[in-house]
C-alpha cells in the first residue's frame, strides 16, 4: 500500500517536474527567437524540412477528406432536398475544424516525429554537447529555428488543407453528383464568415503549430540519450501532441464558437 502510494507520488512529481522543465525550455527557446532575424537561412532550411516536405501528405489527405465529406453529406442532404447546402457544410467543417485539426495531426506524425528523432539523435550522439563545447547554444542554433518554422508553416498548411478540401468537395458534389455549381459556391459564400470562421481557424492552426512543435522539440531535447530513449521519445511526441491538439481543439472551439 505504502509502495503504491509512493509510486503514485513519484509519478505525479516527475510529471510536474517535466511540465515545469518544458515551460522553462520554451522560455529559453523564445529568448533565442529574435536573434534568428540575423540567421534567416536556418529558418528557411527548417521551413523546407517541416513545411515543404509535409505538403504532399497534406494535399492528398485534404483532397480525400473533402471528397468523402461531399459524398457523405450528399447522401444525407438529398433526403431533404437540400443538396445545394453541401457547399456550406463542406466549407464550414473544413475551415473551422477539419483543416486545423487534421492538418495538425498529420503535421505531428510527419514533421513532429522527425523533429524529435533528429534532436534526440543529436543528443544521443553528443552533437549537442559538442556544440556547447564550442560555445554555441544548441537551443538557439538547433531548437529555435525549428520551433519558429513549425509556428509559421502550420497555418499555411491548414489553409492549404481547407482550400484543397473545398476543391475536393467541389469535384465530387458538382462534377460527380450534379449539384449546381453556382449554388455550391454561392451558398458557401453566404454561410462562411471571414472573421468568425476563417480567422478563427487560422488562430487555431497557429496554436496547434506552437503546441505540436513545442512538444516535438522538448521530447527530443529531453530524451534519454540512448537508442531506446530516442525511439520512446518519438512515440511520446506523436501521442502527446495528437492528444494535446484534440483536447485544445475542444477548448478553443468552446471559446470561439460556444456563444454565438
Amino acid at each position, binding site marked *: 500500500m505504502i509502495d503504491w502510494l509512493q509510486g503514485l507520488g513519484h509519478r505525479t512529481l516527475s510529471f510536474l517536474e517535466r511540465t515545469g522543465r518544458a515551460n522553462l525550455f520554451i522560455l529559453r527557446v523564445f529568448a533565442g527567437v529574435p536573434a534568428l532575424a540575423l540567421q534567416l537561412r536556418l529558418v*528557411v532550411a527548417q521551413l*523546407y524540412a517541416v513545411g*515543404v516536405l509535409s505538403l504532399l501528405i497534406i494535399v492528398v489527405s485534404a483532397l480525400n477528406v473533402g471528397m468523402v465529406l461531399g459524398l457523405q453529406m450528399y447522401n444525407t442532404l438529398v433526403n431533404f432536398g437540400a443538396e445545394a447546402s453541401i457547399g456550406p457544410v463542406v*466549407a464550414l467543417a473544413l475551415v473551422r475544424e477539419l483543416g486545423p485539426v487534421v492538418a495538425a495531426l498529420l503535421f505531428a506524425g510527419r514533421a513532429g516525429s522527425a523533429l524529435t528523432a533528429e534532436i534526440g539523435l543529436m543528443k544521443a550522439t553528443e552533437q549537442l554537447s559538442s556544440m556547447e563545447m564550442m560555445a554555441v547554444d544548441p537551443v538557439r542554433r538547433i531548437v529555435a529555428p525549428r520551433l519558429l518554422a513549425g509556428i509559421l508553416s502550420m497555418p499555411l498548411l491548414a489553409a492549404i488543407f*481547407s482550400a484543397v478540401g473545398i476543391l475536393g468537395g467541389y469535384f465530387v458534389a458538382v462534377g460527380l453528383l450534379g449539384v449546381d455549381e453556382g449554388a455550391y459556391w454561392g451558398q458557401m*459564400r453566404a454561410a*462562411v464568415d471571414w472573421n468568425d470562421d476563417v480567422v478563427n481557424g487560422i488562430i487555431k492552426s497557429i496554436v496547434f503549430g506552437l503546441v505540436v512543435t513545442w512538444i516535438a522539440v522538448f521530447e527530443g531535447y529531453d530524451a534519454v540519450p540512448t537508442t531506446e530513449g530516442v525511439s520512446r521519445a518519438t512515440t511520446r511526441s506523436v501521442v502527446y501532441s495528437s492528444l494535446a491538439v484534440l483536447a485544445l481543439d475542444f477548448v478553443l472551439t468552446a471559446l470561439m464558437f460556444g456563444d454565438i
Partner: protein
Amino acid sequence: MMRTRTIEIMVGAFVAAGIAALFMLAMKASNLGTASIRDGYQVTARFDNIGGLRVQAPVSAGGVRVGRVTAITYDQEDYEARVHMTIDSRYDRFPSDTSASIYTAGLLGEQYIGLEPGGADDFLADGDAILLTQSALVLEQLIGRFLFAMTEGKDG
C-alpha cells in the same frame, strides 16, 4: 545535401501556395469578397415581432440583396423591436414610404427583411425610419389563429 537555392525556391513556393490558399478561402469561399458594404446609410424600422431575425441578416428589395441588419434592440417606450439596417449607398432612391416586412427564405430558411418601394417623391436618407412594417409570421400564432377560426366556423 540539396543546394540552398533549390531549398529557398521550394520554401518560396510553399509560402506562396499557403497565401494563395488563404486568398481562395477569402475570395471564393467566404463573404469577404462580396458581402462587406463599404459605405451605406442607416435606416431603422419598428416591428411588433421580429420572429427569428438575426443581426447580419440580409435586407433585400425585389429579391436583390441591398443591405444587411446591423443591430436589433428592444424599445421599452413603445414595447416594439427596433431593427437597424445598413443599405448600400448605391441604392439611395427608396421612396420615404417604403414598407419593410420580415420574410422567411424557403419553408425553414433564415429570415430576412424585404423592402417594397412606395410612391412618395422624397427618398429615404441616413437616419430615417421606415414607418410601414409587417412583422414576422410566427408559426405558433398562425396555428392558433387557424384553430380559432376553425372552432368559430363550427359554432356559427
